């Protein structure tokens, strides 16, 4: 694997709830993203995936704070950056897009200026040149008639077009990393397909790394190279997309894949649900957070799950899982098939 562009180690982020209580949203996460790589970060609501994405850019707002860990971007320690350096870094090297594009655009400014703004701010470029560059950027993200659309206001755009404009803004300075937090969740499936294609095409063309935060494994299957699955503030499994989808190892990953109805699946049978609900992250617990919902723990009646955190175990090429039961079961499965 090539050298990591972004590497985070042991990052913990918590939200203070009172004097003695805190919600542990991210509980010690290691993750690295290589140059030009598309990584999918998957989890259900409350798993901490969005907070992790914000933590990477040190964008967590009080009462939230990063309490531990290292964030290295191209060897540089993000945690040590001054406010000025941080702002320059965020503008130049990273871009971010969100779920609701309409709420991220300034409603009283023409979109041309909003696309040109990062250029005017971070590059020595005149207004005229920036305006012309904005038209090119809008053309590159597939906005029809960009010469006219630069004059439009955000309310004149459809949801899909607004997300295209957000992508144009985020990629205006050819950042080395783009973080997209649920970029297609608010869009219809036909538009989602187009935006996913655009994101992956633009990132591959510019050599930008992409962290795609989503709850939808189908979206990840479509464009990601690597997938990390988060549950209750921790990454429980991480690996190449093909291995993750065809040979998932963690019972939670397996559960997620089985629970979502798929097109063409036999109809009428029972869906494989995951009983129970996510744990309360403001209550500390000793064992694996998934243990109370875990079938594997029940069938193997593992004691360790309640008392200790499973360490990452390698189950395949660049494929790691944090589960006391999974490592053993993978071996027995391999024995059966070979």
């Amino acid at each position: 694997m090539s050298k990591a562009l972004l590497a985070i180690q042991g990052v913990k982020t918590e939200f203070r709830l009172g004097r003695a209580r805190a919600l542990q949203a991210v509980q010690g996460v290691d993750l690295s993203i290589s140059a030009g790589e598309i990584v999918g970060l998957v989890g259900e609501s409350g798993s901490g995936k969005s907070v992790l994405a914000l933590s990477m850019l040190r964008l967590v707002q009080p009462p939230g704070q990063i309490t531990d860990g290292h964030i290295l971007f191209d060897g540089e320690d993000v945690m040590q950056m001054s406010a000025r350096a941080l702002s320059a870094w965020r503008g130049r090297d990273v871009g971010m897009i969100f779920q609701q594009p309409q709420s991220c655009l300034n409603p009283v400014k023409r979109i041309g200026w909003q696309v040109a703004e990062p250029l005017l701010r971070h590059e020595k470029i005149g207004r005229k040149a920036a305006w012309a560059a904005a038209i090119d950027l809008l053309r590159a993200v597939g906005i029809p008639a960009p010469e006219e659309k630069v004059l439009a206001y955000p309310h004149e755009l459809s949801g899909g077009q607004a997300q295209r404009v957000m992508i144009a803004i985020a990629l205006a300075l050819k950042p080395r990393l783009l973080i997209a937090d649920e970029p297609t969740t608010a869009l219809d499936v036909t538009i989602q397909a187009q935006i996913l294609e655009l994101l992956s095409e633009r990132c591959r063309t510019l050599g930008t790394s992409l962290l795609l935060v989503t709850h939808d494994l189908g979206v990840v299957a479509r464009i990601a190279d690597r997938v990390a699955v988060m549950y209750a503030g921790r990454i429980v499994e991480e690996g190449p997309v093909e291995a993750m989808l065809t040979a998932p190892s963690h019972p939670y990953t397996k559960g997620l894949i089985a629970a979502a109805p798929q097109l063409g699946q036999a109809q009428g049978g029972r869906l494989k649900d995951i009983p129970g609900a996510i744990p309360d992250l403001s209550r500390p617990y000793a064992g694996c957070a998934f243990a109370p919902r875990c079938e594997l723990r029940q069938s193997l009646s593992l004691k360790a799950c309640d008392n200790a955190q499973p360490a990452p175990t390698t189950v395949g090429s660049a494929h790691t899982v944090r589960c006391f039961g999974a490592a053993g079961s993978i071996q027995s499965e391999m024995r059966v098939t070979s």
Partner: protein
Amino acid sequence: MTIPPLLDVRNLKVRYPIKTGLFGKPVDSIAAVDDVSFTLERGETLGLVGESGCGKSTLGRTILALQQPAGGAVMFRNQDVFCLSPGERKHQRRFAQMIFQNPRSCFDPRRTLGASVRMALDIQEMLAPSERDAAVAEIFRKVGLRPEHRLRYPHELSGGQLQRVGIARALILKPDLIVCDEPVSALDVSVQAQILNLLNDLRQEFGLALIFVSHNLAVVEYIADRVAVMYYGRIVELAPTHQLFNNPRHPYTKALLSAVPSIDFTRRHEPMPKLGDPPNPARLPSGCRFRSRCPMAMPRCAEEDPAMTALAAGHDVACHAALTAS
């Protein structure tokens, strides 16, 4: 004599004003539901799919007379739901209930959930007052909650649990029909599977007819017996679920199906449909409204609005190209 269907929707039209004149009279409007007809038998589940703004939720609401139509009729249990006296309407409501997308916004935050569910019985004056609490406990058990949950307030429950209460409230009146408007869209997939399994069990046990409105095609394929695909106020294809998903005939249905991202890794490199942007609903194209995004559009499509025509038994489609091809 044949038995009339449970629900018979005939040429239903709903218009929303988008501009009003000097004296508040609408001068321009959008046809949210435009000449829609279908029937639903007892115990049957109809899936209603389409993109946002296609009118699927409006259609669901109008069937329950929560929205006034601009034309057409909805016959439910042999009565036109728009021609009822207030008393008759209240009686009718017992048999047709609704489940909403966001259960958090449809319960009174200051009332216990048990009281909210019991209220349905109180209003309909079903059962003796002394028996009602027991009935609530019973229905809570049926939807997978504990009787203690009756004493909880909405903020104490998770979204999935609250949606179970929403189902309990609809079910306690033993209705014939439940309109489910995106009932699992706000839920995480592991919880979504729990709720879909529950709905599937309950509709069999109670012989319920469901109208299941959703933008999620895989969910609709799982639960529905028949599926109607809507595009800007019109049903463009209506067929038994298996047939619609395995042999879609309308180019819009085909595009929708191929746009769903699959977790099947082998399908990763299948091309995505290039549909283009949706039209302005106030200025739909002449003739066929899908023409502006259709890969199969012909000159005829600009002139003539295609009518729903049967291609096979129970499989109707509104498309000139699909009809000439068969």
